[in-house]
């Protein structure tokens, strides 16, 4: 299958690969997917006191489109509020990366990872 230039770029130079301390109070972690399905995405955000995403990192086990989708969303999330981040939709990701229909589920995974990371952070704050 031929990949778009943008997918290849993120795949070859993934942005914001890394790990944050999942136990820190200002960090939210979202892990979605399953090894059995061939894709697991872990997205982490570090949030400032006034609710701005200061840092976002990922690690992904999955196809090139899954890696590119998660790399892209870390770029998009940085500097956004939690509310703004939650507005990132899989179709935006799929459109930006020119994903073919069979790869749309990889962008869905990235959207799920955003929600999971935000939820995790909010739960910690509430708890």
């Amino acid at each position: 299958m031929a990949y778009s230039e943008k997918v290849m770029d993120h795949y070859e130079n993934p942005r914001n690969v890394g790990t944050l301390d999942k136990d820190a109070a200002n960090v939210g972690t979202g892990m979605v997917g399953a090894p059995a399905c061939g894709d697991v995405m872990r997205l982490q955000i570090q949030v400032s006191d006034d609710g701005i995403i200061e840092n976002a990192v990922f690690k992904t086990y999955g196809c090139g489109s899954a890696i590119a989708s998660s790399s892209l969303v870390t770029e998009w999330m940085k500097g956004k509020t939690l509310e703004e981040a939650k507005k990132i939709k899989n179709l935006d990701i799929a459109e930006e990366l020119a994903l073919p229909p069979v790869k749309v589920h990889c962008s869905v995974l990235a959207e799920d990872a955003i929600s999971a990371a935000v939820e995790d952070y909010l739960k910690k704050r509430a708890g």
Partner: protein
Amino acid sequence: MSNLKLPIYFDYSATTPVDERVAEAMIKCMTFDGNFGNPASRSHAFGWNSEEAVEEARGHVAALINADPREIVWTSGATESNNLAIKGVAHFYKKNGKHIITSKTEHKAVLDTCRQLEREGYDVTYLDPEPNGLIDLKKLADAMRDDTILVSIMHVNNEIGVIQDIAAIGEMCRERKIIFHVDAAQSAGKVDIDLEKMKVDLMSFSAHKIYGPKGIGALYVRRKPRIRLEAQMHGGGHERGMRSGTLATHQIVGMGEAFRIAKQEMHAENDRIMKLRNRLWNGFKDMEEVYLNGDFEHRVAGNLNVSFNFVEGESLIMALKDIAVSSGSACTSSSLEPSYVLRALGRSDELAHSSLRFTIGRYTKEEEIDYTINLVKQAVSKLRDLSPLWDMFKEGVDLNSVEWAAH
């Protein structure tokens, strides 16, 4: 580094290039100056010459497998041979019973043919292979019933390269008077086949797996004891009524030449290929979390199927643009299931998703192997740095204990 030509071909089980000698022989059977006649034309030299070329080729195919040329039926490939053998036997012998035995790791051309027969009311048993890919003969014996008419087991598996004990299965089938079909698409020219000794009744071949052209194959149909088939293709009654259609002289001559070369060169070639394959495996086997899929001993020389745990196959293939390999991951094929062959061995989905198949052949060079070892090591290391599963493995987390949010 010397001048390697990229990308490097490591997919000889998918298909092989046509050997130059084969191409030359084929070209002589197409144009007006060549042997273009219809082999079925009985009234002139154009037909006679083509017929002679076809019969010479039939002799070459028969010679490689120690069979009588009259036992060879031309088809369009192993897919058609498998269809003709399995449906042909099932339909012809249905009065004797409607039970068929095969295995879960067969090629789709066997499995889907069996599915079709199930829809027609036949009963099919799909044997589970052992974790090394081999069929346990006791389980096969247990599956045999009084109404079993056919056993179909492949010789060499296309994904993992394991070699089944065809001779032993043949003895078991003959004793129970069950017809035995073998898909030998991946074994002809790679593993010795002697059909005077082996009690195989039907055997499928394909030319394009052994440096012949695509679109031509053959079915061996035993004469003693005589095996009958119901034709699947009706028409002019070619090939003793078993497969109608004008014979494709150039294709047949190409297949014949490929089989002739294989008979002469296969042993020397196997030694060379085996060394390359072992060199490749030696380059990988000391990496962390690398698994060989399929038995190492009972394995065809050119096959290496490996799982690089915690790395997903399709992303690995993206990093390996310079080599042509195939992956057992779901994403590279049109289905969503990872390799059904690896799953049938009991491999976890993760390991199936992280598998690569390297198949080595006539034109593989040692420097290509060395280049590939480096390339793969770098790619695996890069992707493991990206992999949350690798992180967890390194932290000592048991991935089976995690509750995954499967989607």
